[in-house]
């Protein structure tokens, strides 16, 4: 059976460097593209119609703006795959500026006006969404609170379960690894220009659970090896051994989970399902960084902190 002898702790600078590098790239993209929040969080309205034939984008914009008395951006997507495999229809997406919701009367008026202007186009609502900004904001805050609660609960859990190997330290280092993962998921949304929506929150929470799962496996092995190897073994050796022993399992599980989500992504991409791909792509990234952060970040950080604690202890003792 393959046993690994990778020097995780010794190579830590390389691992930290890779992480910081990717985050720097993400930050640059963020500065260029900005952070976009979906209307679910900010409020606003979007209507998607399907139609056949041709329409003029500027005319549609004028009609919409005259009927609803609001600024709107109109985008036309041609030949979107239709669900029942019949004639490929075109889609027109109307996004209303600002964060106000759209009244039902306005929406009906727009539909009527469009049908009057293009009677043969057969406008049909594919999707429409109107969110009141107050509700959007409170939903957003609720999501953030939930993520914060998740972090707190998970830290407490680790601190309790791994008291024997320095619970709080283990917990805090795990949290740093988790923050690293959340940042990676966030940058995925930014780089691929997906507005932050409920999928973002769901993926973040899921990856928190998944990445912590990974970290726990390693901590569990550290706890066991501490018992086996004795208290005199240096932390670097302890952690290196533990990670190497669990490396196969970390790879296998990350591999299986990644593969499952990757298939969802590929199938979603093939069928053109935006709701599925915006959910699965960040999840794929999250699974990879979850494994990477548990193996290469949390472990070495833990060693560094414990070494520092030991040094401080000997410093005070020798006084």
């Amino acid at each position, binding site marked *: *059976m393959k046993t690994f002898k990778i020097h995780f702790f010794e190579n830590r600078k390389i691992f930290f460097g890779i992480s910081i590098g990717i985050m720097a790239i993400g930050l640059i993209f963020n500065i260029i593209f900005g952070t976009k929040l979906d209307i679910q969080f900010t409020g606003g309205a979007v209507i998607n119609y*399907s139609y056949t034939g041709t329409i003029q984008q500027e005319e549609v914009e004028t009609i919409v703006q005259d009927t609803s008395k609001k600024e709107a951006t109109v985008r036309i997507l041609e030949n979107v795959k*239709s*669900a*029942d495999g019949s004639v490929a229809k075109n889609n027109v997406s109307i996004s209303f500026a600002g964060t106000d*919701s759209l*009244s*039902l009367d306005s929406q009906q008026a727009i*539909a009527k006006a469009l049908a009057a202007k293009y009677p043969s186009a057969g406008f*049909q*609502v*594919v*999707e*429409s*969404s*109107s*969110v*009141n900004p107050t*509700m959007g904001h409170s*939903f957003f805050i*609720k999501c953030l609170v*939930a993520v914060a609660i*998740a972090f707190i*609960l*998970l830290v407490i*859990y680790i601190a309790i379960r791994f008291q024997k190997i320095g619970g709080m330290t283990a917990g805090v280092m795990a949290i740093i690894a988790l923050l690293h993962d959340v940042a990676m998921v966030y940058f995925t949304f930014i780089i691929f220009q997906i507005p932050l929506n*409920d*999928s973002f*929150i*769901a993926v973040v*929470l*899921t990856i928190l*659970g*998944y990445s*912590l*799962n990974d970290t*726990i*496996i390693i901590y*569990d*092995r550290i706890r066991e090896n501490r018992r086996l190897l004795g208290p005199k073994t240096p932390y670097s050796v302890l952690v290196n051994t533990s990670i190497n022993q669990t490396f196969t*399992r970390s790879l*296998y*599980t990350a*591999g*299986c*989970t990644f*593969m*499952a*989500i990757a*298939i*969802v992504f*590929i*199938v*979603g991409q093939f*069928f053109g*399902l935006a*709701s*599925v791909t915006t*959910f699965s792509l960040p*999840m794929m990234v999250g699974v990879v960084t979850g494994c990477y952060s548990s193996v290469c970040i949390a472990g070495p950080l833990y060693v560094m902190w414990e070494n520092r604690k030991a040094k401080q202890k000997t410093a005070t003792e020798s006084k």
Partner: protein
Amino acid sequence: MKRVAKPVFFIVALLILFLTFTATFGIKGQNGDNSTSYIKGVGDIRWGIDINGGVEATFSPETTTKATKEQIDSAKAIIEVRLTSQHITDYELYTDYDHDRIIVRFPWKNGEKTFDPESAIQELSATAMLTFREGGDYTTTTTGSDGQPVYKTPKGTTATNIILQGSDIKSAKSEMVQDQQTGKSSYEVGLELNDSGTQKFADATQKLQGQIISIWMDDVRISAPQVDAVITDGKCSIQGNFSAAEASSLANKINAGALPFKLTTTNFSTISPLLGAKSLQAMLIAGCIAFALICLFMLFVFRLPGFVAIIALLGQIALSFAAVSGYFPFVNSFTMTLPGIAGIILSIGMGVDANIITASRIKEELWAGKTLDGAIQKGDDNSFWAIFDGNITVIIVALILMGVFGPTNILSMLFGPSTTGSIYSFGYTLLIGIVGNFLFGVTATRLMTKSLSGFKFARSKWLFGGAKNENL
């Protein structure tokens, strides 16, 4: 180590296969033309609006003061009556007393040709206040869709003098009357008034003989007959050139009652059924491929424990189906959305982790030189806490997901129930997946592995991950 009897493997495996089969296909009885489901299968799963298409709307009362709990409850009851009278039985309706909101969500009926969600929402939230007023003066006229004039907004005495209100009406019925002379049939709505209404109406018809009493539904005048006689029996009818459908719809509106306040639609979201149809198929394909690949992987890498893992995974998936479809009588059926299916697929990937941990541990112990039985025992024992801790964290996350994205619960005490239901389903299937993982990935797996190791053909270290041709 405690010996597990050989038949145990077959018992557990067969139970799992039975669960899988029934959870997928259900058990249906055929009684002539009717088929009753004794046990629900995958076909009975209620799909969310992102798969079936549908409507989600949030209503808020247009009052400056806070609405009372009774008012919100009565509004909720009226909306429910309206939903059922439109034959929408598969709806979800939540009330938020703190923020004065009513959230309604319903899928679009299968086979409905026209997708007109806006009308549906407007019908649900219409105040539906029926009034009888003195005189028939109106403020504006518009042309209705059939070319007939539509008179709106009472004014003058008509505005101030209300003779009857919806609360005075006991019942309304759509009736067909046939004209004696021409033989043509038309539809009208027959009203029966309660005692106070009868009295008020008798007084009014006496006072206004020869004049007009107009009938209004909200802001629209639907009829303006002249008073010919004094009506004391509390029975009258509304005539307005109604078609059968219009008459019955009006009768339903009157019967359901008027809302205690005017509702505005603050949020709404609609998805056309065409959009969702392919999504379901896509996810099912993805699920099957993912499962197949994981099975191959487990068999190839872990051999016999891998085989056991496949059976355990089947059990976990079957449990997920069962928990969603309403297979167990004590667990309510659940609306399944696309993220919900993703949750099942994700929990397959994470669930196989338990088997990977255990099998890897057994392999490790074998390579460290333990006997087969010793390795299995030690592998099981040592891996349990790692699996437990890992699963607990995912359970914490799943519960939080359900809390944020679901209806009334702790987090919503702070911020109100959510209008986004689809992620709620994801949290639920993730949670069930982990619970199933404990049941099948841990307990059933261990039973099956130990029992299998009793068989002669299985007494080979290689089958459990050890080196080939080693002494037992």
